[in-house]
């Protein structure tokens, strides 16, 4: 099933080394995986495991030490700053743990913000932002400033901002890290719902195993390496979710245990897949890079035209 789907993100032998004074700290060590279109992927790990770094690398916010990350067929670490900015406008959305809203702007203006960079005319972008805020249930809070809203409401604004431009990929770094349990569930449901409606790909970082249950694919990270990659059957999960709604949080662990058993079988297939992928990738690396660059030029030309 996975093979039929379009590969959106390809992570190949990615390595990230920090320099702290004279010490070198390896945050991410030789990591490779794929994320497919429409997938909800979760990077699960304890704090300091390198999961956030990996997300930042995938988003092009941080520079790679070695390896490559290919998003939509383009090697994002070979792009110029300007093209990367254009690329972010077009394909990427972000949800942050600390919301990162502009305090001086109203909710509506915050959601409008990425559209401003995309040079969308004021009337149209205002409508888009309003529709998005209505969708996340903040119809009555359009003109409120972030400081006048609760954490959950702020994160809803953050989600609206991430999804308003209809990006193909949305990165979420601990989106519920500052929220209470009830709001967490609401926010997670919201993200999932919005993403599913538009067949958008989500890459989420969390340390909370329960939240990982929302994902289709869980990549467990430990000390900068992949511990395991688990695929969850979406149909199966749907049933579980309905159970979860009625039962208290303790059921999460049970569910996880049950799932773990099933996953063992799947994991074997998955690993085979990865191995074969790595082989094919290494064969085609040089070729794909060239075509990637060509495509980049095309898209930048296209954006100029659309301007």
């Amino acid at each position, binding site marked *: 099933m996975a093979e039929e789907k379009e590969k959106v993100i390809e992570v190949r032998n990615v390595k990230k080394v920090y320099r702290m004074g004279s010490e070198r700290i390896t945050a991410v060590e030789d990591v490779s995986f794929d994320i497919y279109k429409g997938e909800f992927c979760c990077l699960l790990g304890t704090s300091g495991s390198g999961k956030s770094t990996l997300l930042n690398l995938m988003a092009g916010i941080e520079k790679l030490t070695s390896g490559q990350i290919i998003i939509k067929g383009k090697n994002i670490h070979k792009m110029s700053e300007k093209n990367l900015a254009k690329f972010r*406008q077009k394909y990427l959305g972000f949800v942050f743990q600390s919301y990162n809203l502009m305090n001086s702007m109203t909710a509506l203006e915050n959601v409008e913000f990425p559209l401003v960079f995309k040079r969308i005319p004021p009337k149209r972008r205002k409508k888009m932002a309003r529709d998005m805020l209505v969708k996340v249930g903040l119809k009555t809070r359009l003109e409120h400033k972030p400081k006048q809203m609760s954490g959950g409401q702020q994160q809803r604004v953050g989600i609206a901002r991430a999804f308003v431009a209809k990006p193909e990929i949305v990165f979420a770094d601990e989106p519920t890290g500052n929220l209470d349990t009830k709001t967490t569930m609401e926010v997670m449901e919201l993200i999932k719902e919005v993403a599913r409606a538009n067949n958008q790909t989500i890459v989420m970082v969390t340390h909370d195993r329960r939240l990982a249950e929302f994902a289709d694919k869980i990549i467990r990270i430990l000390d900068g390496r992949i511990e395991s990659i688990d695929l969850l059957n979406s149909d199966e999960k749907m049933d579980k979710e309905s159970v979860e709604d009625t039962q208290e949080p303790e059921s999460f662990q049970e569910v996880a245990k049950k799932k773990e058993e099933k996953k063992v079988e799947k994991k074997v297939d998955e690993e085979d897949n990865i191995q074969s992928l790595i082989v094919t990738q290494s064969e085609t690396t040089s070729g794909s890079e060239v075509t990637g660059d060509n495509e980049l030029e095309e898209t930048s030309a296209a954006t100029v035209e659309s301007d």
Partner: protein
Amino acid sequence: MKISDLIKMGLRNLSRRKARTALTVVGVVIGTISIVVMISIGIGMNTGFKSQVMELGSLSTITISKYAAIKDDKGNYIDTKEQIINEDLLNTVKQIEHVKTASPVLNAQLTLKIGNSVEGYAYCSVMDVDAMKEFGMPDVQYGEMPTEENPDVLIMGSEVPKNYFYSTKGNRYEPYQFEAGKDKILAYMEMYQYELKDPAKRAEFYLGTNIAILQQNSQYDYQCFMSLDTFKKWYMEAIDYIKPSDKKKAIKALKEYETIQLNVDNVKNVSKVEKKIKEMGYQTESLNSYLAPLEQTSNMMQMVLGGVGAVAMLVSAISIANTMIMSIYERTKEIGVMKVLGCCITDIKKLFLFEAGMIGLIGGIIGIILSYIASFCINKYGGPLFEALMKSTSVMYDNSVTTSFSIIPIWLPFLAAGFAIAVGVISGYYPAKRATKISAIEAMKTEG
């Protein structure tokens, strides 16, 4: 980002930090005021000098003197040169292009007697009646200028009646105030260089009340004038009383002039004509040669004053840079988020440059408005101070000259506004560059 969005966002950012923006703008305001006011004072001074020099006579007049002073480029006296000035030269000079009128100017020394007890002594310039007006002689306040019917008129400068007569009663020589229309004058022409046949006998010329008094003008105030025709008539009469041996010399002397004055059609052509006469081997003098060093002085003053203004502007430039750097520290997180949301670094740079330029523009406009007020106040109340200042720089300063001390020409506000914007943008350049270099990941980690 669209320009309209950029402007909206920039203005919003400025209004978010009202106090700091206002203080920085005040810096620019002070800088602009000092530059505009200083330059306007310099221009006012220059204009003042010019009108003072004009007061000394017409700027379009050139003088060729028998004893000509030779000056260096800065107007300092070096030497005197004696040159022969006669009718031939007068005729050649008249032929030069741009010369409107030319007249010889001779000197006569007259003793004036009123009755038996009052005597006066007058130094008299002699020239063609027609030329007098051309050379900028002021109008008469009493009597009439010489005409064909009445050629023999003695023209007095405005100070002559007050200062040049004294009583010969006793030996105290008390000053005597001449009363025009009442006192009747008997004139003698003095010829000290020749010996008289009989020291007691001299030529007498009865003028009676036939005199004219000029209006005030510093160049004409302290001497008398008479027409060339009258002078020639009197001279020929007077030489009858000198010894025959000197007579020939005296007649020959009449052919040589003390000076020739000529009037040029336009002030701009004065130096051109002067150059031509100099090529003929004659030394000339004109108010232009006064004006040049004065203009140099005022240019120097202008530069010094402008420099003071520039220092104030430099300080305000530093304060703009400081404000923008502070603003970057404050907005580090915001910049990081903007970058992650797909804002081009060029847009971030433009945003900061716009904000800095805007501070310059606002400060410039307010500064220009205040400069006009300041200029008005200087002209109205700054009189005593600036008179003292002008006196120290110009020997010829005359209180009667009423000029503006501060003049703002039409181009100055535009120049000042442009300069203020430029200062803003230039001092905002470094902070803007810095803003673009902020790493998004570091920026998002900071609080704010």
